[in-house]
């Protein structure tokens, strides 16, 4: 069986690992648009921006790797590359990830998605005294944390009034917001950008923000590739923008290709590291309402728990959610 994985991020890597671990010994080709071999992204907004250079490469897995190459088309039998080559397949995975959404008028602004983006941002922060971050999602928050650790004057702007609540709910969101305030980040929440030049942003309340550097972190859009119904999809291209989802979807795509039953998902965990504090959410917040400060209920049952600097609490939280289900 010939397998082609389009994409070389976490989902494709986990798919390849799971195929090999379950005895697939046929050819696997992995096609990645970036120049790098598959690597792990969470440290891009953490360790890399602290000036560290950890080895981010995933473990070697027996695949034929094509870096710096894009797929332009997937037919029912072939993946067509931008080099003109056609790779015939029996099973194919689309795991092309996502691309940062840019803002018109902010072409000079940086974004953070790839290792090259992170290295560029790290270098730029070396020569800057201030940074404006448009978008206070996970990436925007972690960059703000890194920027304050480097003593940059930091401004965080978001169109939502409570952007910190999205990832961790109101209890966790309040904690995150306090971390940023205590660290001296200037927050402009519920504010839209109405005009921008190289170093000046104007907001809809007529506030002016000046900064040496601007980062746009307002989210990503899936890097979709039209494909027939016989291919599999995994990772950020599906619209689920979390590490754990990409890992599970990649592994489950491999299991499907091999005709194995998918693994049952335990309650999900998402995490962020900011200002030296690890904040985790176990379970999911869909249709959930706060019940106490850091716990959430759905239909009267525990559905999510937020942990602040308590990584060992994941076990207990996971067990409690499973038992409540």
């Amino acid at each position, binding site marked *: 069986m010939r397998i082609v994985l389009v994409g070389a991020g976490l989902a494709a890597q*986990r798919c390849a*690992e*799971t195929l*090999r*671990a379950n005895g697939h010994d046929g050819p696997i080709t992995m096609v990645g648009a970036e120049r790098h071999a598959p690597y792990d992204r969470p440290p891009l907004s953490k360790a890399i921006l602290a000036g560290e250079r950890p080895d981010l490469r995933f*473990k070697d897995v027996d695949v034929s790797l094509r870096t710096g190459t894009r797929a332009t088309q997937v037919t029912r039998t072939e993946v067509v590359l931008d080099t003109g080559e056609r790779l015939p397949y029996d099973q194919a995975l689309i795991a092309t990830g996502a691309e940062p959404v840019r803002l018109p008028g902010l072409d000079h602004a940086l974004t953070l998605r790839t290792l090259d983006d992170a290295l560029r941002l790290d270098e730029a922060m070396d020569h800057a005294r201030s940074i404006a971050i448009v978008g206070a999602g996970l990436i925007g928050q972690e960059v703000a944390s890194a920027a304050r650790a480097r003593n940059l004057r930091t401004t965080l702007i978001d169109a939502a009034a409570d952007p910190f609540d999205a990832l961790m709910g109101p209890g966790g969101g309040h904690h995150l917001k306090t971390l940023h305030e205590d660290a001296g980040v200037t927050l402009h929440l519920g504010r839209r950008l109405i005009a921008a030049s190289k170093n000046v942003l104007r907001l809809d309340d007529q506030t002016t923000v000046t900064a040496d550097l601007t980062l746009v972190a307002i989210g990503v859009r899936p890097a979709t590739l039209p494909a027939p119904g016989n291919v599999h999809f995994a990772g950020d291209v599906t619209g689920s923008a979390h590490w*754990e989802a990409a*890992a*599970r979807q990649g*592994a489950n795509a491999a299991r499907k290709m091999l005709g194995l039953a998918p*693994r*049952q998902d*335990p309650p999900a*965990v998402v*995490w962020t590291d900011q200002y030296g504090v690890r904040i*985790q959410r*176990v379970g999911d917040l869909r249709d959930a309402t706060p019940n106490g400060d850091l716990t959430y209920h759905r239909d009267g049952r525990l559905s999510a728990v937020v942990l602040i600097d308590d*990584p*060992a609490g*994941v*076990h*207990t*939280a*996971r067990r409690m959610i499973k038992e409540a289900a």
Partner: protein
Amino acid sequence: MKVLIDEGACLAHGDCEHVAPHVFHVTDIAELHGPGTDDELRTAARACPAGAIRLFDETTGEEVDP
């Protein structure tokens, strides 16, 4: 202390191998590679972002917090 890797929870983050390389080995899932001291097991269990390393008291068999 006894250690158990919850295979349903493990996501092969690799943090356990990073903090205790002679105890854990991670491919698409974490596996026990050799014996570890209680301290090493606790450190690894705490480092696991997925909470997949579970620890049990050897004599009582009860699960203990890392």
